């Protein structure tokens, strides 16, 4: 990739040049996501629906009740995961950090496991029989409570401990503890609860209904706005905590905002779509290579847009267009995403740029 535009060291211009391309791409994949699925709706039918016309009733239902909320969810969730991954990689200055490194999603998983298993154990399995792809608010509430509990724990401890490595290890330990508790719960549960739980861990964009969409979208958009407000301190943190403080940044305040924003984004995503992996760790790296910069004024909007695009593509692939098969999102993200990222990174190293934070 050429370095045009870096003569004066400004990566913003290059980003603004690429912006129409990215915006166009996101519209195209959004349309494709609306068209493709177990029933393919042709493009002109989509246009008819969008301009207020009528087509086959089954298409109308699929389109409005199913495809549109799913596509909006995918865009928001992809952006949120990429963004929270970016925040964590910059905060910990570690290329392996992802949105879940603080243990947020593990807390959410524990909440979900408790709700599902207790229902199973109490013999109330019938109530939850409909769970699965249609989703249920009780799962979201349980997940948010679990994520929130972990966030409180992390904030409490980080007010006492300065070192971000300690917080990193702490988050990993919280994940292990939650994982252990989930395993114990699974041991005593019914087979159907276990199946429901494992379906939830596969991740899905399809569980969010129109009534749930605003509840998910508002906190995610708040997280996006908070991230835009963080671009300057995030850039300063690239030089490390000590330099950032020497330039007048209030480190303690900023890290609380970073941790809370990440928890908000990752927690809400997990609550509504399950613990979707890979996107959060890979997209920030992809964006750095693609935009050839570590400047967060480029990376924050870049991650939101690229995250949205990739989540939409993932969703299209996972529904295997033209068939009734639905593959787990988590399998698709890793299976198709990893080779792409490997290619981007390996190609990068030829120019002396590998994975860097």
């Amino acid at each position: 990739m050429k370095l045009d535009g870096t003569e004066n060291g400004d990566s913003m211009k290059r980003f603004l040049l690429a912006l129409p391309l990215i915006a166009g791409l996101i519209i195209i994949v959004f349309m494709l996501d609306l068209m493709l699925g177990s029933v393919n709706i042709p493009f002109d039918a989509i246009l008819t629906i969008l301009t207020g016309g009528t087509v086959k009733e089954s298409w109308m239902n699929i389109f409005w009740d199913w495809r549109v909320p799913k596509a909006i969810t995918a865009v928001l969730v992809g952006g949120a995961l990429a963004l929270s991954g970016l925040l964590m990689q910059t905060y910990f200055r570690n290329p392996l950090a992802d949105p879940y490194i603080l243990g947020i999603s593990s807390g959410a998983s524990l909440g979900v496991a408790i709700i599902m298993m207790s229902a199973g154990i109490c013999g109330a399995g019938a109530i939850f029989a409909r769970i699965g792809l249609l989703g249920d608010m009780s799962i979201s509430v349980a997940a948010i409570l679990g994520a929130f509990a972990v966030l409180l724990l992390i904030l409490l401890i980080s007010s006492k401990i300065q070192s971000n490595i300690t917080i990193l290890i702490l988050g990993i330990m919280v994940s292990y503890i939650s994982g252990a508790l989930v395993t114990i719960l699974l041991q005593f549960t019914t087979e159907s609860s276990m199946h429901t739980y494992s379906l939830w861990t596969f991740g899905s964009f399809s569980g969010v209904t129109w009534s749930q969409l605003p509840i998910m979208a508002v906190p995610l958009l708040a997280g996006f706005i908070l991230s835009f407000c963080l671009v300057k301190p995030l850039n300063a943190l690239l030089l490390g905590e000590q330099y950032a403080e020497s330039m007048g940044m209030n480190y303690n305040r900023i890290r609380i905002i970073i941790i809370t924003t990440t928890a908000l984004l990752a927690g809400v995503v997990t609550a509504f779509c399950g613990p979707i992996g890979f996107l959060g760790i890979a997209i920030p790296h992809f964006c750095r290579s693609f935009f050839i910069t570590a400047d967060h004024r480029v990376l924050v909007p870049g991650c939101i847009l690229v995250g949205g695009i990739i989540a939409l593509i993932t969703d299209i692939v996972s529904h295997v267009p033209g068939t009734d098969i639905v593959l787990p999102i988590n399998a698709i993200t890793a299976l198709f995403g990893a080779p792409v990222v490997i290619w981007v990174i390996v190609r990068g190293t030829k120019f002396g740029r590998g994975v860097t934070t």
Partner: protein
Amino acid sequence: MSDASILTCTGLSIGYRNQKAIVKEVAKDLNLHLDRGELVCLIGPNGSGKSTLIRTLTGIQLPLSGDVLLCDRKIGDFSPEEKAKTLSVVLTSQVQAGYMTAFDIVALGRFPYTNWAGKLTESDREIVLSALASVGAGELTGRFIHEMSDGERQKVMIARALAQEPELMVLDEPTAFLDLPHKIETMRILRNVAQKTKKSILLSIHDLNLAIRCADQLWIIDRRGNLITGTPEDLVLSGIFGSAFEIEGVHFDAIRGEFSIPVERRGTFLLSASESVERIWTLYALERIGFVPAGNAAPDISVSVRMDENGPRWYYSHPAGEHNCGSIRELVECISVHHNGGDNH
């Protein structure tokens, strides 16, 4: 206080404490003074408390007692942003930031001046570019920091500190990772910055020879935590400099202004040559292999340097005859063969 005073400390004690008690006092009763445009080198043996002093002077660590006055104002009274506009730092730890150009890094120095999004104005840009130019890193502007050598990276970090437009720049061992020519270059850049921009510079350094030659003022901490300040030349002449650093078997050579490497003494020499570079390096070579000047006594060996049309020749005379050598290497080999420890003193 004169208005030229940038940093003043009176009765400063530095060290570490936990919640209540003082755990370790590193140094006490420090009285320090740093003027505008002055370059001060802080030197001292490992473990003497250089880093603690630097951390205290930059306000990262609280003093045990006494005050640090930055521009006649207590450093604790500064807001983080005000402090950033008065004091900038270059840390020892190397920056591992990928995908950042030199321009991006130096632009971060504008942090205390830019708006919430860190947007650079035209004047910010000019300051960044001129900071890069004044450290001789103009051609690095668009290059990525992770593709730079240690020396180039250090220049960029100095430019970043400069772009912060402070009154005082504090550098913690800025020459630590560099080879000798780059050490000297870094010191030259800092001297230039101090003289041209009238910024004050405080740096800690391990290289004593460089410190003596570059600093307007030396602050020496010895092993007991005593701090001595003064012009380098005064400190050398009074013998304070040597005594602060000499350890068993290593002595400070006040004439050369460096620490001599002790060698086993093998004899005395008489060197006859005109004043020239060849004479000086022949002298060094003889000292290196263990000979000292004979003075008025009879020498064990005598060496003379004469110039002919092809360059210098070395003549080594000993009781058995004279050798004509084309290089110092030959001379040294000759002396080793013929002065085979036979009449050691």
